[in-house]
């Protein structure tokens, strides 16, 4: 390991954060759908919105690094 490119390490941390966040959202969404299957559509929509916001952040970080 000649040099530790901190840019890339930071980007990796942010992507891990995004991954954890998405996983949590997905998990909670699954639980909510299991509790009330009639509301599947609304929950799905909300999940997609949040996923997109999170992905935007993650990609912005990736491009900055």
């Amino acid at each position, binding site marked *: 390991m000649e040099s530790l490119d901190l840019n890339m390490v930071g980007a990796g941390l942010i992507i891990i954060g995004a991954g954890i966040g998405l996983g949590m959202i997905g998990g909670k969404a699954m639980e909510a759908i299991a509790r009330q299957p009639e509301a599947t559509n609304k929950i799905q*929509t909300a999940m*997609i*919105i949040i996923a*997109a*916001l999170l*992905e*935007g*952040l993650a*990609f*912005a970080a*990736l*491009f900055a690094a």
Partner: protein
Amino acid sequence: MSASKTAKFLVFSLLFVLPFGLGAQEHPEEKDGFKTGDPVDTKTEIKNYIDHHLLDSHDFILWSDAEAGTHTSFPLPIIIFDDGIQVFSSTKFHHGEAVAKSGGNYYKIYHNKIYKTDAAGSITLAEDGHPVNKRPLDFSITKNVFFIFVIALIMFLMFRSMALSYTKKQVPTGFNRLLEPLVIYVRDEIAIPNIGKKKHRKYMGFLLTVFFFIWIVNLMGLTPLGVNVTNSISVTLCLAVITFFIVQFTANKNHWMHIFWMPGVPVIMKIALIPIEVLGMFIKPFALMIRLYANITAGHVVIMSLLGMIFVFKNWIAGPAFFGFTIFISVIELLVAFLQAYIFTLLSALYIGSAVEEHHHDDGFDLSDEVSVTH
């Protein structure tokens, strides 16, 4: 599935797959056509190939003939604003190798940007590799601009004919049958829940335009034509700026109150919230821009890199394996194309909705009926 359905599915999926495969085969020889004589390094060639596909360019290369080393293209006009407007065709640049003379000034293309040079075409580079030559204001019609015009024309014709067909019959026929549920979806799922039934009509034009434009342009970026409109951050910047202007100029008093003098919080917090809210006002369109640009560009770069890996490895296993990966990622890209259009439209509708909503009376919680008497 019955036999005919399976057959149709296979043919359809083959049609998806072929363009990517064909695109992969053509180009390494083309690169040898450009640089004659040098021993070609695979990695720089791949990088050149990726750049050539993803960046904007001043002439529209339709296809290239590998053996003859020529391209079938048509050159696009270059419009520069230097001292006075100069218009000339990009054939003068000879694909970036010659110096073009126009109106007493010399210009040269370096990495797809036009710089002003002297007759010998010298580009002086600073230490970090960026040229220090002056750049004229570049309004030329590049590949992206041309393609935006084409898409705008197609969209106009498509939707105009659809609108006109409603005067004759209530139920749409033909291609309009595809478009009508999409338009209704944008209205009922995106516009009305966020903007409200009374005011959504004014903004439907913008939301529909943005939705279909981004979707069609994203899809076209996946074809081997090589036009990547949303790959350039300037295009997404303009889209986000339009959303920003619409939100600002149609915001009513409640919106500005919420930004500058948030009702319902103590005065100290109001003052502390002002910079945060103002910053948020600018960051929201900025995030729209970055999200669209980064998603689409990252997807394209991944596809191109995977295709390039085939040429790095060059054995019998890597070829099909990477090809399979590429197909997989391309199918995901189809989903991303739609999703990004949907998200952009949805968030635009959300911001517009928060800007025009009426004042609710939130007087805070009424705690007296929250208290539950537990045993």
